């Protein structure tokens, strides 16, 4: 058994082809690092994807890879997992694809807790098809198909995945490489449906949309790093915090009063509502969250599926062609 513990062990022979400056390079690097850090066996990792810029990633990894249809990877992964429950199955999904042709497949997979890890690469635009809005594009964005500015209400991917039943949901950033590395490791270790939204900069069609979180000097004022069991604070000297109040979230300036105590983040909570609320917080009114929103364990799809009559018969079985109603010809 050969182990591969260098990121380069996970590079395929193919030349990497994204635009200069694309955030996908950083993500690919962290994926390779995660694979080698764990370390994982090359032959047991399978990366599936469809069509899109991000979806090229499987081509660049020396694991097993399958680049099928735009929108088809999630269901194919579900089938693969039923055929070979021991493999670790990854899906790379752009926002355009994930919340376009794959919406249905994706949300049902959340519901069923299919044991796959989805890297949802969100650049809030359809890149490869040359810059159309997706269901995550923020209002007012000028796109190839919305030259007067997109007007639809976007989704928060993590919140919707949570609402649909995902058992592991996290968010990270292309350029925040250490954080991203950790989150990928967490996802890889999760048993069940893992959904990782990675905010990724599309240099060409949607440059700098995440700049407040990614590179601006005052980024600590804009985002919370979620940590399980820790109070949710942020900003210089952690002077700011957030707190659940009834069915919503409030900003607090923590001092010693109980009423201003920030809430403690609980990624293992039975209910997913706290996580959903965190996943929808948005600048400028609120900080945005990165980290693990939720990580709970529930029976996986392939397990419950095979718990019924589907288990292979341990003895050498024989096919009963006759059935109960056969008869000899007299």
């Amino acid at each position, binding site marked *: 058994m050969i182990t591969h513990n260098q990121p380069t062990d996970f590079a395929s022979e193919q030349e990497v082809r994204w635009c200069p400056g694309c955030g996908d390079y950083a993500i690919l690097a962290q994926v390779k690092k995660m694979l080698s850090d764990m370390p994982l066996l090359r*032959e047991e990792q399978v990366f599936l994807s469809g069509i899109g810029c991000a979806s090229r990633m499987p081509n660049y990894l020396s694991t*097993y890879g399958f680049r099928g249809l735009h929108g088809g990877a999630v269901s194919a992964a579900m*089938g693969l997992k039923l055929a070979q429950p021991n493999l670790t199955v990854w899906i790379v999904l752009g926002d355009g694809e994930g919340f376009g042709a794959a919406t*249905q497949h994706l949300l049902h997979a959340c519901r069923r807790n299919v044991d796959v890890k989805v890297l949802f690469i969100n650049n809030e635009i359809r890149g490869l098809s040359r810059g159309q809005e997706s269901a995550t594009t923020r209002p007012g964005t000028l796109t190839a198909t919305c030259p007067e500015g997109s007007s639809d209400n976007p989704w928060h991917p993590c919140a919707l995945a949570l609402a649909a039943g995902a058992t592991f949901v996290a968010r990270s950033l292309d350029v925040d490489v250490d954080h991203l590395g950790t989150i990928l490791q967490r996802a890889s270790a999760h048993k069940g449906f893992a959904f990782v939204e990675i905010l990724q900069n599309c240099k060409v069609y949607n440059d700098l949309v995440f700049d407040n979180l990614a590179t601006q000097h005052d980024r600590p004022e804009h985002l919370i790093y979620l940590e399980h069991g820790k109070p949710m604070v942020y900003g210089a000297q952690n002077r700011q915090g957030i707190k659940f109040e009834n069915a919503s979230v409030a900003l607090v300036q923590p001092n010693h009063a109980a009423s201003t105590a920030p809430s403690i983040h609980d990624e293992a909570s039975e209910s997913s509502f706290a996580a959903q609320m965190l996943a929808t917080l948005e600048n400028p009114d609120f900080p945005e969250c990165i980290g693990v929103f939720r990580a709970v364990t529930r029976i996986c799809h392939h397990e419950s599926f095979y718990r019924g009559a589907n288990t292979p018969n341990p003895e050498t079985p024989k*096919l009963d062609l006759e059935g109960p109603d*056969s008869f000899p010809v007299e």
Partner: protein
Amino acid sequence: MEEKTVNPGNPDLGAPSLPLAPAHAIRMTGDAHDGIAMLSHLFALAAGSRGYHLYSVPEYPAEIRAHANTLAGVHTSSLAFAPYQEPIDDRTSFLLAMNPAGLKLHESCLEKDGILLANSDSFGAEELACAGYLENPLAGKNQLFHRTISVPMAQLTNHAINLTRAGEKGALLSYREVDRCRNLFALGMLLWYYSIPIDPVLRWLKQKFSVNPSILDASQKAFKAGFIYSETANVFPQVPAYHPLESLSKKGRICRMISGNDASLLALKHVALKTNRPVLLASTSRPPSHEICSLAAKNTGDGFSFILADDEHAAASIAIGVSYGGGLGCTAVSGVGFPHQSEVVSLASAAELPLLLLEYQRAGISTGLPQRVAQSDLGMALMGRNGEAPLVVLAPDSPSDCFALTLLAAKVAMRFLAPVCILHDLLNSRASESWLIPEPESLPDFEFPHFASDSSSGPYECDDHLARPWITPGTPGKEHRLGGNERKLNSPQVSFLPQDHLAMNRHRAARMQRIAEFLGPLPVSGDNGAEILVLGWGGTKNVLEAACAMAKKSGISIAFAHLRFLNPLPKNMEMILNSYPKVIVAELNSGRLFALLKEKFEFNGISFTRQDGLNFVISQVEQAIIQFARRES
């Protein structure tokens, strides 16, 4: 109640080699609670043991639970049966009507001098009105058929079971339970009429109701009462003329009535067992494919499983995921759902992965007529993809052929790593026929060299079958990337170069030729040097065969062939078409096979079609053959 007198045809009394009745078709019809399906099944069981080859087609109501005695709630079974090796006859010479609505829907199909056997107890004013009869069609001046036999089956059944009148005190079984035995009374009458031994039915009842002695007793009583009543009351004006038994070569073999869906399922299970690879059917349940789905769900295990998908694209995608994982991914689909899977078929073709599509044709466009027969998706199967993505297309010729053909389809899919579509119609999937169960040793193996994971060739390096090694994820040291992009021949490397695309197009076309060789030639039966060839495909085989037999009687020399492989066509197709001065291509659509043949070959032929959602009628095909044979051309 003792069996004292029996008619000469009663095979219980030592006349086992008595000749069989000639080909017949009977139809049984009634309301939901009349138990038509069970009646038909038991009749087939008994007649099958006697040496008949049976072919039955059920018709369900479109409504899920229609109001009692309405036209919308009629259940029907049509049963054609003939001695083995003999052509069937589809003229209904016997109609059993358990209620007026059933009669109303089927009165037009009974031959003028056919027998109508009716349960007169359900021909009351209310039931008649529900069915739209102003007057009683069983008797009086509105009597529909001169050979009508009215039997108060409800009363007689009750009498037989309870030795009393319905509702009277002392009844042993409730009215409702008694009611459910009426079909057995009718069965007894039918078996008497056709001189079919009753033992198989008695055995079946004993097994079925062993846990419930009172029901068992009641059933037996009702059944025997029907049999005896026919004799004692001398109800039938005459019994059918028997003709000498030509062949009972099947004697002693084990037989069962099998529907096409049952047969398909058995085949899939066989593949799972033989290959030791997972076989999974993923599907939505769009009628008529919902039947195989329910059946599959009930029969999972031993490597075979079923999953209900959220839509057709998901279903096919799950299936291809299974195949990518080294199993056989299957999907069942019908009509309008088929094109949604086209993209996945193309992917299977590009990535070279096995995929088995069980397609169930329905009549009509859009929602159409899901309960009606048609061979409506051949065009879609042949052409319905972008670019030149080939799909192997096979069609079973009968319910039992669903077994053999599905095995073959799985074999092609796995041997060539290619998508394969089986085109079903209701005549081969929903219908049942007597099936001589094959010897286990005769079943095909599924071991191919390219399954070996230790081959040194790359993932797309083809063997002599033009099939690549089937390296599946999990195999150490063989990691590679597959997908739907065009690529270099024999390599997984993506390429958009014209010459590579051309090479791949040619490669895929060449593989289809290998598959044609693998599948073998089309056999032709009938007269050597015949003047006319009748060619069909799908579930119409028994009807076309019978029509040929009939037409032959008019002195026409006929050859008959029935295509089970539609793409690639058999290698001898052209040779066959050129061997006959005239060719008649019969199908239940606007003439798709005919068009396919015309497009490829030159021959002198006509297209004979039916497009109203019903099966061919033997006599109509016969007429068409005769006319065409006599036409100068």
